[in-house]
């Protein structure tokens, strides 16, 4: 069974990754997970300086999911290189470093420094962070800014450059097209969906920032539709993300057009979900008589005469 795939100049052993912010820096779970069975690890988002993150409460459970406002708490790129990268280099899997910044220059500084380090296989860019210069609105909802970040970073690295898109826009496929033109090798679809939870008794929001990011199985149908929308209109490899708990969930993402998947919130319930999913996809493909898991990518049996965005209106 062929399980792997190639992106730019890097070969990944399979199509299952763990999503940024849901697997720490990989070292926390070393006794629980055989990370060598993953296609790769997306690290927690890194910024130039360490970030404290938001005050508690940062998380609230919601039906079949959770809301978070971690605030990109992270140790900063220098501590990452010094304290985490040496361990990550010893792992038999690919390391994709996720970067989050509050200015275009900061994205470039962080990637520039990391690009010189050994043991990093690629970069994933989290554009769902506040743009400090332009009033704190997320870069990721501004198509021009997202493309600008992409082309500036493309000029700095020959490694795979993956842009992680936010679903909190009207047409995610326009963003995918823009970053493709700007030189991205792939897109990750998707980050969390803006959501809110309220405690009726205390009349308070249940997380400190009032609104936050919804994740988990609750968002899987949204994520499938976003991946499908991008796959239908832009020719770019997609990492499908959103609510994946099982191998069957992952296969659904492959069918709608994802080349690979990332496991996020499910890691909080079982950090070895990614390993179970990778094995499960392989046995699913074997049962279906396939020789290459890639045969599932985009193999959805759907009518193409409905437009992706308007068919249900």
């Amino acid at each position, binding site marked *: 069974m062929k399980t792997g795939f190639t992106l730019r100049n890097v070969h990944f052993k399979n199509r299952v990754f763990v999503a940024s912010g849901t697997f720490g820096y990989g070292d*926390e779970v070393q006794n629980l997970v055989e990370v060598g069975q993953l296609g790769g690890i997306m690290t927690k988002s890194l910024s130039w300086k360490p970030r404290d993150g938001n005050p508690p*409460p940062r*998380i609230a*459970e919601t039906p079949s999911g959770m809301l978070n406002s971690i605030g990109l708490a992270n140790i900063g790129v220098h501590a990452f290189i010094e304290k985490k990268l040496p361990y990550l280099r010893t792992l038999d899997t690919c390391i994709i470093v996720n970067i989050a910044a509050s200015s275009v220059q900061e994205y470039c500084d962080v990637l520039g420094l990391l690009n010189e380090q050994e043991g990093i296989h690629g970069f994933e860019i989290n554009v769902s962070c506040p743009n400090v210069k332009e009033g704190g609105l997320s870069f990721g909802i501004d198509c021009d800014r997202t493309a600008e970040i992409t082309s500036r970073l493309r000029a700095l690295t020959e490694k795979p450059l993956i842009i992680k898109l936010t679903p909190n826009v009207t047409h995610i496929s326009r963003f995918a097209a823009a970053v493709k033109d700007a030189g991205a090798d792939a897109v990750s679809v998707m980050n969390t969906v803006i959501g809110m939870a309220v405690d009726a008794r205390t009349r308070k929001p249940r997380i400190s920032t009032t609104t936050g990011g919804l994740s*988990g199985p609750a968002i899987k149908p949204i994520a499938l539709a976003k991946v499908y929308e991008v796959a239908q209109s832009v020719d770019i490899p997609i990492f499908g993300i959103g609510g994946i708990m099982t191998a069957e969930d992952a296969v659904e993402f492959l069918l709608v057009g994802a080349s690979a998947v990332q496991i996020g*919130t499910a890691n909080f319930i079982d950090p070895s979900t990614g390993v179970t999913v990778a094995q499960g996809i392989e046995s699913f493909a074997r049962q279906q008589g396939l020789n290459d898991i890639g045969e599932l990518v985009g193999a959805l049996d759907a009518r193409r005469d409905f437009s992706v965005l308007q068919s249900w209106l």
Partner: protein
Amino acid sequence: MTLCNADVTGVREVAQGVYVLSFRNPEVARTVLPGQFLNLRVHEGLDPFLRRPFSVYRVEKDVVEIIFQVIGKGTAILAGKKRGDVVNILGPLGVPFGIGGEFTKAILIAGGLGIAPMPILGEHLRKAGKRVEIFVGARTVGQLALHHLKSPHVATDDGSRGFHGTVVALVESYFKEHPQTDAKVFACGPTRMLEAVSRFAQASFLPCELSLEGEMACGIGICQGCPVERINAERRYALVCTEGPTFDCTTIRLREA
């Protein structure tokens, strides 16, 4: 640390809405230390979704016990477990209480379900040669779960049993009659109570550790969801799951839920 299914050996109601669930797991039974917790998946469904953290209450041979109050979906499912069912456990997790050190007497203070870590803590302290005095507070007599606590001093908010008032007021009056110098305080309970304990311990120049119970998702340091504010530290927050749940009371700032 283990992540696996464990066979439930029994569930019993020990006070109004308060249950003890026991399960068999030799590894946890052998390795768990007082103040550590387990993150339990209560069922295989998606709602409730996340694991639920519980302190280890007691260990007997291969059997581990937790004690909890039914307050929502997760605890209701746990209360309905039968012998032969399974719970999925992740643990033991977190930093245990510091029971070594110079002190000779341990003052244990529990509010409500804050009694959870006290039986295992008392046992380990006694084994380490410490004298143990335990103070327990509850709203009313029906909510007291005093099993496995040796001669507890009791306070109820409504005066239905023991001292009429808060458990911290009870400790203060006890200290007036029996001044303590060579003691260390261990406390677990609601945030307001922990704040009062912390003020009391600092005013009495006694070392004091608190066990916190904030929101958690992973329990193992990978989600950054469980911060507690630190005092005068370079890093603003500590993670309750991996740097706690037990903390020296002078190092953290408590937050009213």
